[in-house]
Each structure stands twice: as structure tokens, then as C-alpha cells.
């Protein structure tokens, strides 16, 4: 008797897991393949706005990409180069200007919700006044592109060779929140290395090595 019960339970479980797995089939991936990973960030920074709409060059903020292995996440003082003055979106500021003109008063400082969080990390009340005894903290960004420890990837080598940032990172300029666009798997890397050696990058020949130790050491 109990054998029948066990069989029924097992069958029910099997069907249930098949349904669950089938529904998520589109998201299946091999272990460590994080394609599509798009974690929530501590500050809702928009690459679409900065890199897309405003057209700021990637390397303006990720300046280390040209010089070293890590592209680096810009330090907060890079943000503050602009956001000492730009405290909210253009439309909101424009409207306040018009309104203040009409009402014959000085415009109020309007700080967007995201920038409030930015200033909070630096312990600033508004962009120009540091709090007495304030302590600036790093912004705890969540890492999106994370290669395993046994892989070495050097940004500067690829940037110097003329590989566009989008080749690996996808159309970041259209992403509100960054997500991992490509699989960043070894097969994907190797295919690009083969293709680059065969066809060159932007018309110039490159030698993208296929030796194992180029990435694994």
C-alpha cells in the first residue's frame, strides 16, 4: 500500500518540478553563466541617461579601462564633478527656474531622489555643504560583470586593440539598469579571439592569442 503512496507522491513531485523547470526554460543557463544578470543597485544610476541621452563617453567615468586590467567603477568625486552643480534632471530644474522667475525669487535647490542618495554617501546635506564631522562612504555598487577567479581579463589590452565596449557589455547606453548582455563564457571569448585574428578589428590586423595562459594563469 505504502509503495503506491510513495509512487504517487514521487509522480506528483516529478510533474511539479517539470512544470517549474519548463516555465523557466528561457532562463536556463549553465552554472556560472550570468547572462542577463541585472541586480538592483544602491542608487538607481541610469546608463541610458548618461551614456545614451547625454552621450558621455564610457571612458570618461571608467577611465582605468585604458590603463589597467580593471575598467574600475568611478570614484564618487568623478560623479561630483558634474553633480556639484546638476542636482536634478533638466526638466525639473528648468521648470523651477521658470517658476522662480515668475514669482520673482531665487530658485530653490531641487535634488532628485537618486542624487539625494549620492550626497548621503558623502555625508552632504546639499551638493556644496559638507556636514561637520561628516564621513564619506563608498557607494556599495553591486558588481554585474564578474569573471571567475581563474580568469584574467585585461581591459586595457582590449581597449588598445580597438574593441568597442559594447562588444562585450552590449548596448549599455540603452540600459536603464545595467545587465550582463553577453554570456562571457570561454567559448564566447575564444570565438571573438578567432574572429579578430582572422578578420581584424575595424580594418587593422590584430593577434588575439588562443594560448590558454593568455587568460588562465
Amino acid at each position, binding site marked *: 500500500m505504502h509503495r503506491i503512496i510513495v509512487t504517487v507522491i514521487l509522480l506528483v513531485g516529478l510533474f511539479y518540478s517539470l512544470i517549474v523547470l519548463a516555465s523557466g526554460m528561457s532562463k*536556463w*543557463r*549553465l*552554472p*556560472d553563466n*550570468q547572462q542577463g*544578470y541585472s*541586480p538592483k543597485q544602491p542608487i538607481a544610476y541610469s546608463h541610458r541617461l548618461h551614456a545614451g541621452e547625454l552621450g558621455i563617453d564610457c571612458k570618461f567615468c571608467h577611465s*582605468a579601462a*585604458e*590603463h*589597467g*586590467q*580593471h575598467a*574600475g*567603477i*568611478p*570614484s*564618487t*568625486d*568623478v560623479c561630483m564633478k558634474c553633480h556639484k552643480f546638476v542636482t536634478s534632471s533638466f526638466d525639473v530644474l528648468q521648470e523651477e527656474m521658470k517658476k522662480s522667475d515668475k514669482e520673482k525669487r531665487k530658485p530653490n535647490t531641487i535634488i532628485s531622489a537618486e542624487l539625494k542618495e549620492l550626497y548621503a*554617501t*558623502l555625508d552632504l546635506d546639499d551638493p556644496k555643504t559638507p556636514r561637520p564631522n561628516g564621513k*564619506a*562612504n*563608498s*557607494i*556599495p*555598487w*553591486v*558588481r554585474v560583470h*564578474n569573471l571567475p*577567479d*581563474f580568469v*584574467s581579463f*585585461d581591459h*586595457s*589590452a582590449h581597449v*588598445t*586593440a580597438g574593441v568597442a565596449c559594447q562588444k562585450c557589455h552590449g548596448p549599455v547606453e540603452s540600459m536603464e539598469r545595467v545587465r550582463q548582455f553577453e554570456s562571457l563564457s570561454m567559448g564566447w571569448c575564444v570565438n571573438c579571439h578567432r574572429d579578430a585574428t582572422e578578420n581584424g578589428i575595424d580594418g587593422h590586423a590584430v*593577434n588575439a*592569442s588562443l*594560448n*590558454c*595562459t*593568455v587568460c*588562465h*594563469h
Partner: protein
Amino acid sequence: MNYETSKPDNVNDASGDGARAADVDLHGGESPEISRRRFLEAAGFTFSFVALNGCSRPTPELALPFTEQPEGMIPGQSQSYASTCAGCPAGCGLLGGVRDGRPLKMEGMPEHPLSKGGLCAIGQALPLGLYDSHRLKHPLQRGEQAEWKQVDQTIIQTLEKVDASGGAVRFVTSTITSPTLRSSIDAFLKRFSDARHISFDSLSCSAILDAHEKTHGARLLPHYRLEDASVIVSFGADFLGTWISPVEFTAAWRTRRVPTAERPEMSYHAHFEGRMSLTGSNADRRFRLAPDEFGVVLSHLYVSLAERSGEVPQHDALTESPLAAADLAALAERLWAARGESLVLCDSQDVAVQVLVNAINYLLGNYGKTVDIARPSRQRQGSDRDLLELIDELRAGKVSALFVAGTDLTHNLPGHDTLAEAIGKVELVVSFAERQDDFASLAHFVCPDHHSLEAWMDAEPVSGLVSLSQPMLQPLGKTRSILESLARWSGHEDSAYDILRSSWETNILPRTMSTTATTLREFWDRSLHDGFVEVVPTENAATKVGDFDASSVNVIAGRGNAAEYCLTLYSKIGLTDSRHAHNPWLQELPDPVTKVTWDNYVSVSAATAEKLKLIDGDVVRVATPGNGASLELPTLIQRGQHDRVISIALGYGVKGTDRFAKVGPQWFEGRPTVEPGGLVGKNAASLIDPGNGSLSLVRSDVTLSKTDRRHDLASTQEYHSLEIPPNVAPHGAEVRDIVQKTSLPEFAKNPESGKPEHHFDGQLQLWPEDHAKEGHRWGMAIDMNACTGCSACLVACQSENNVPVVGKDEVRRQREMHWIRIDRYYGGDDDDVDVSHQPMMCQHCDNAPCETVCPVLATVHSDEGLNEQVYNRCVGTRYCANNCPYKVRRFNWFDYPHEDSLLNLSLNPDVAVRSRGVMEKCSMCVQRIEEGKIDAKRRGAPLVDGEIKTACQQSCPAQAIVFGDLNDAESAIHAADENPRGYGVLEEFNFRQSVSYLRVVRNRGDLQTDGGEHV
């Protein structure tokens, strides 16, 4: 399907299905607690869960940027800081590689006038000391954690009391080369009526200093200039290993040790010693001589030289020389012919013997040439006499305050217990030790100094050469610079940086050699950038010269020695005195001669061992009946050891080293590195002879007896042999030409002399067409004539490539992980032993035997000639290691411990930390090759020869290693490849290695050129 088991306890088993019966049968009637089927079910579920887990998202990893990025800092890129190595007082130039705020890799500074780019094993191992979690992080007051404020207050109050009562204040340090620290100590002591600063070196050159006081009117240590010496005769001075400034001496010695076909010249190096030292093993001619007979041979040498000069002093009858008259005459002749460019060195602690050495060097006209007293060395300042006086004062209870820095006073001195009792009588005892060492545990206050990589400091190792040390990171604990501690107790609040700057303003800047006016800022910035600055040397203190007469011979003339044994205490490379005993890299560094790790031992000659029926590992008892001290240590039979000499290394048995009990992998058959209740090795300082006004490391009043116990030593030399065992060797191949040697006269006739006749054409290739190496082809050449075997490369490699420490038991099981080892070969007999050191690492063969046997292609060949090891493909069959003729592959039997998160900061992020079950080996620092290539790409310029340096090459004090692109016709490696001395180890097998060796050339006519034995 309804079997019943015969076992009653299975009857009630609810899940008793068919498998039960099978299980019971398989296990011979006994039921295991969990059936095989149940186990497989559970395992299956577990594995599927693990697999499913892999498909989930990772736990979010944070990336924390700076709030303000420091200028010029690029994340992940290494920056070099010029500094001074503080591992010993030699003061070598250091370039600290700092990445993302943490010092990782110490490199030698190529521009440094003394070390010339070399850095020894100790310097390489500094980061491990920095990230040592056992280092004190706060001051201690009577062994309890305390606050600086409270400590300062109590010390100041006690000092005021001492000052008022006129009590004696004594400040003991190891040699201090820092002018700023010296003046700080002087300033601190000035206010006390009876205060003295005493320098104490556990490996002292006190006798040389005292001898110069006698002969030259000033207590100074000459700066020996080996680069100017064509004949070097050393009596026991291990100048390539541990004596005064080994890196500097190695670099200087090397300049005259590399003959070329065009200039077949090299220096002649004769070495007299009782034990087998690294320097002795590199000499052209090594003589066995007990250290208590140095004086006798020196007196004969002096007289023999004086005869040649035509002025023989009237002297007493000499004791008969243990050295053959012909050898003595030949040596005297060589020295006399090289007047002004010869050098006689001696490590004796007997002032009379050192006076004789001075007389010989004077007679040879070496003063002002190879013996520089105008710019003396400050690398050893210790005075045994001062220290013995202090001990007497302490015993008499005459000292009120005792400060000790840079040395473990009680550990490094004999008579530990009575000394500890005497120190107990002192009112105020302060230690600056970085950990609670033997003396610090007696101290009332421990005021830990920063680690040298955290602190501002300066050094003047040789008069006129001042260098700076700069901090490479914020202090990890609440430690405080000794400069600041002294300032606080003198009532100043200055920081160490300010103290250093103002000291430079008043003391160093006025000595500048710059002809144009320099501001302190310019001078400081330039010195800080360069790491060192050459300034006007302090005035020559020598007041007289040439005050020698027969008395210096007469003191020694009548001596005879009949003692049965002569005990020699020495220090090992890497450990020196006790200060580096907590560094596991240095503890696991095989001694360059004995190859033993993790222990000290009693070295005896084969004849002595036979006499006492000893074999390696038998515990013997060494006793000094005079003062009742004794020590029990395992025996090691040493080739070339004098029959009367027994030698023991100092610097072992250090308090707290029981922490290494569990240093390696912990598994069921594992044995602890340190026996329960024991320490790493035993402290031999109890055998130091404090008589005759010196702390003598040589004494003749010892007895040696066998005990019935054994203690296994972990030596790395007995395996990884490239020899064929004699019982299986084919006829004619009993001896392989692994080490090839020639003599200088032969070399002058034929630069290819020493080359054996091989029976292969060298052109056979396995894959001639499809593996064209058109871009780079990396290669390495090792000059065995320059290599001294000092093992700096070994620790450099360990630091660069995250090589784990495995512990004594694993070394015993032949599982040490070092990627580079130094094979040592003996030739000749005990009286005239000829030693060769051969660094051995992956040879990166083109026809690699390992590659063809790997079933998973985990080891493959790159198109740049490297033999690559791909960890993720490796499944651990170990076929490759079995098939490797050089035995250089290392297998990860375990996941070696990486639990200490502070210690993990020393790991190089460019190199993967290997996990259990994979093979690893030398990669020729492929991470550096890739970095160099990318660097060149960024610059848009082709790679320059010499730009990429492997870790072993960079640190080599002898510059014995050349690395580069064999396809570059202009490169140094290309030149080395065409050197007539070049050969490949086992090249007769046509492996077509990328590593070649340059043949040994000995400067002697009567060389035995058999290959030597790998024992």
C-alpha cells in the same frame, strides 16, 4: 522481491527492500549503518541540488570605489615604492610592489649601489611577516592589552623616578644603521645621568671592529669591495650566505666570476671552513679547517707573505700548520701576486686572529683598495664587550631601566634562566618587539614597533650612502613607530615622518654632494623617489695605519689544539637570528647546503658519524661541561664537514613557533610539524661561550654523545633526483652530465671544454612544421658559475606564484610545492669537496614528455614556446609528473590552508590559487609576460628586451638568470643561447628545452670533472 535477511535487527526496517539482501552478502553478513542504495540515493539528490544551485544567481558581490581616487592610482595595477629592506642591517634597496593598497611582492632595486637589484630570501618574505596575524596589534602592559596613553604615562612616571635617583638606563638594540633612530636614541638617553646605548648582534663582527680599534685607532668595520678582488681567501666568512651583507657581496663577487671566450679570466676564491657553508660550496678550492685553527694557518700565511715582502718580523715558533706546506705556499704566492686586489676575510670572534687578518691585508696593500676604511660599513656595530658588561650589571642589579629593540635579548644569549632572573630585578623593562617573544614576555611594557613596510625610517648601511624606507600601507594594528615612542617619552608629539624630515634637514642635507643649492623639499623628494642618496661620507675615523709587528703573530704562535670536537654555531640563510622564525616561507626554505626544512640539527662528518655509530636523524647530545649547558638535536651527516667540527644553527626554538604545529594540510595520517609541547627546532644560544670577552660562537670544550632516540628530518634533496639508480643504469650511462664543469685553463684553451660527446644530431623535431614559433619564443638561461644557490629565487617564486606552505610532514612525504628548487651536487672527496648548485624548474621543452601523456590536454604548448598548465582541465592523473625527466611538476594533494584572511592578503591576484587534485609547475611567470606584452601594446611600441623579468630573475643577487625572447636576435637570452658554455640538462634526449644552463668554470688546474653526486 521479498527476501528476508537473516539478521533480526533488519526485520523491522521499514525500507527493507531487495537491496538489503545484496548489501548483507557484500558486507559478509554485517549490515552497515547506511545501505549502498540509500547512500547513492542521497548522493544523487545532493548532487542534483548542487547542480541546480549552480544555475542560480550568485550572491551579490560589492564593488566599492574610492570616494576620492588617489592621484595616479589605477585599480589592479601594481605600483613600486622605493624603500630599504629591514630584514637585516645590510640595508639592501627594495622596490615594494603595492597593488590596490597592499604590498605584495618585494623586488630588488637595480639602481642601488650595494645590492644592485638583488634581494635575498628574507627580503622576499617580508610581506608574509607584515600580514602575520600573530603580530602584536596593540601595546602590552605586564602582558595585558593596554592603551598607548596609559602605557606612556606609566613609563614617563617611572623614568622620572629613575632620573631623580640617578639610576642606570640601558638601551639595547641590534645594529642600527638609521642615523635618525641613532640620534633619537641618543636624544632620549641624554637626560639621564647614567645612560648607554648598547648594540648587540647575535651574529656579531665585534672582533673585526675591536681589531681595527687596535690596528687603526677606530672601532670600525671596513667596507669590503669584492668586485675589486681577484684573489679572495675567506676563513669561515660566509659572505655569500649570511655574513654582514650577503646580497651586496654576491653581486660584487659575481662580477669577477663569469669568464667569457674573449676574456677567460675570473677571480680565485679559496675558502677555509669547518662546516659546509654556502660560500664554501662556491669556492674554487675549499679547505677543511676547524675554526679554532684559523689563527694558526693565518699566522703561517702572514709569515709566508712577510718573507715575500722581505721583512720578516722576529716571531716565536709557530704551531705546526694543519695545512700542507705546498698548499700554503701556493696560496701565499697567489695572494702576493695579486697585491692590492686580493682580500682575506675571516669571521673569527677572536680579536687576536682579526688583528692578524688586518696585518695580512695591510701587507698585501689591500687597505684603501679592497678593504675600504674611508667609507666604512655600518652593517654590524654590535659590541660583545659592552653586552657582557651589561649582563654583569644586570646580574649585580645595577640597572634601573632596560629598553630592548630589534633583538630578542634573552633568546639570543646563553644562561637564559639566570638572565631572566636578573632582568626581573630591573625597575622598568620595555621591549619594542613586534610579538611577544622571549624577552618581551619578561618586559613590563611591550611597545610594538610598526612592521618595516608600515613605517618611516632611514638607513646608512655604508658611510655616505643614505637610504629611506617609506610606509606602503597604513599600519594594520595600533602599533607605533619607535621614533614616535621615544619622542613621546621625551615630551614631544612629533610624528615619525616629521622626526625623520627634521633629522634629514639637520644631519643629511648638509652632507649633500649636489653643487647647486638644494632645498630640503627637493632633496627629500628626490631621495624618496630614488630610495637612496649618496652623500659626503662621515670623516675617516682611522687615526693610524700599519702598526703591526711580531706581537700579532706571537699571540697566536704558541696555540695548539687537541680538543676532540670544535662546536660551531652559525645561522641559516633565511632565518639569521630569531627574528624571522615566525615566517613559514623561510622555515620551509630548504637550507642551500643540507636541504633540510623546519629544523636545526647537529652536522657532523661521515668519519665522526661512523665513530659514534650515527646515522641521519639519530638524536645526539651536545654538552658543554664548563657551564652545564646541553642540547639534544638530530644528527645530519654532512659532506665536507671537518671531522672535529660539529655545527648547529642558531635562530631556532623561538617562543611561539609551536603555532606551526598545524601549518600544512590536516588529514588522518598527517603528523604535526611541531611535536606537542615543542617548538620549531631548538635554541642553540645556550651553547654560546661568553668567556674571553666575547660571545663566541666557536668553542672547543664540548662533548658529543649518542642518545637512543630519533627525530626525522625533512630534507628535499633525497628525492627528485635526475640520476639513474646505479642498479638499473645501462652500461655507459651511470653518470649523467647534469652538471657540466670545466677548469679555467681548459676553458681558455677551448671555451666549449667540458662538453660531453652526445650521439644525436639535435635536429630531430616531433612537429617541425605545425608549431612554428614566429612571434615570441621565451627562453631562459642560468649561469651556473654565477649562481651561488642562495635560494632567493625560491622565495621570490613562492611570493609571486602563491605557492603554499605544506609543513614538515608533507616535505617528508616529498610533497613540497616549490616551483623552483636548487639541486646540490657533490664531487670530490671530503678534503676537497666540489659542490654545484643547479636551479631546476620546468624546462618548457618543445618536445615535452609531459604533454604527450596528458589524457585531457591539461598541459599543452603555447605558440610562444611555453609549456602551459591548464588547472581547470587537469583531472590529476599525474602521468605528466611521472613522465617528467626533471621532476619539476607539483601535485596539489590537498586544498592547502587559506583560512587566515589577513595572511591571504599576501596572495598575488594575478595567479590562481590552485585547488586540490591539480598539477602545477613553473609557468615562467606567464602573468608577467602577459602584463609586459599588454604594457607594450598600450605604449604602442614593441617589447624591449629585459622589460619582462621573471620573479626568480628579478631578485637574483648574482644575476645568474637571463630571460627573454629567443627570436629577438639582439636579446640577452639570444646571446646566452650562443654562449659556448651553454648546455641543456639531459639534452641527449632531445627534449629541446627552453631553459639552458651555462657550464661551471672553476679557477683551478686540477679539476675533477665527474658530474658529482646528487646526495
